[in-house]
């Protein structure tokens, strides 16, 4: 029996270069997936800005609409759309791992779980189109 105080376990941290994420294709895709969260935050804030412009009256709303029509802004929002779509795809792909193989006590095939989320996504998107158009 040794007199030494028990050592507190420390988490093992693998040493990697700072650019480790660029050294493998799958890691780069992982980085892109994590970056989509910045675009999620952008759209969240934009939703508030949109609502405020509508509430501020026709002139402010026209200003917002004119801004969305600028070519640079259209290009930027195409990038934003690609990013949030990438978020949706990667999020649904992860659902069998994240939610598990059982829904309401019944075994569900992973592909069925992913397909179910896509169906829900289409329904929600159609409902939003119907409400906001």
């Amino acid at each position, binding site marked *: 029996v040794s007199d030494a105080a028990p050592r507190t376990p420390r988490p093992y941290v693998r040493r990697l270069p700072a650019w480790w994420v660029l050294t493998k294709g799958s890691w780069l895709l992982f980085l892109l997936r994590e970056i989509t969260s910045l675009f*999620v935050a952008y759209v969240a*804030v934009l939703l*508030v800005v949109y609502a405020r412009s*509508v509430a501020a009256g026709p002139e402010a709303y026209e200003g917002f609409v004119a801004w969305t029509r600028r070519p640079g802004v*259209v290009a930027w929002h195409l990038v934003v759309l690609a990013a949030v779509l990438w978020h949706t795809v990667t999020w*649904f792909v992860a659902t069998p791992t994240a939610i598990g193989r059982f829904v309401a006590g019944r075994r569900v095939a992973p592909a069925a779980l992913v397909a179910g989320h896509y169906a829900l996504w289409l329904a929600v*998107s159609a409902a939003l189109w119907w*409400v906001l158009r």
Partner: protein
Amino acid sequence: VRGGPEPLRWGMFAAGGMVAALVLPALVLLLCLAAPLGLADPVPHPAAEAVVSHLAFRLALVVVVPLGLLHAAHRVLAAFMDFGLRPFGTPVALVLFSGAMAGTAFAVWTALTL
């Protein structure tokens, strides 16, 4: 919450990720791209005002915006950790979650005053 704020942070991250996955592509397309790309006629102001002033829209605002911001804060913090910036975890977390809280306050205040 058992185990400190960690389970709550993960719960908000998951809820935000799901809400964002379901509604954000449609919102970007509808609010930012449909009219400029000629996919639909622009929404006239009275119609937009009717949607925005509806109680359901205000409720959606105080759900979607805070969850989306908390999702982003959690994910960016995790990315910082992965890039070997663990020693700066606490200040980075403070900045990210303060930002998410500020955005939440902005959304709640907007929802109350629309």
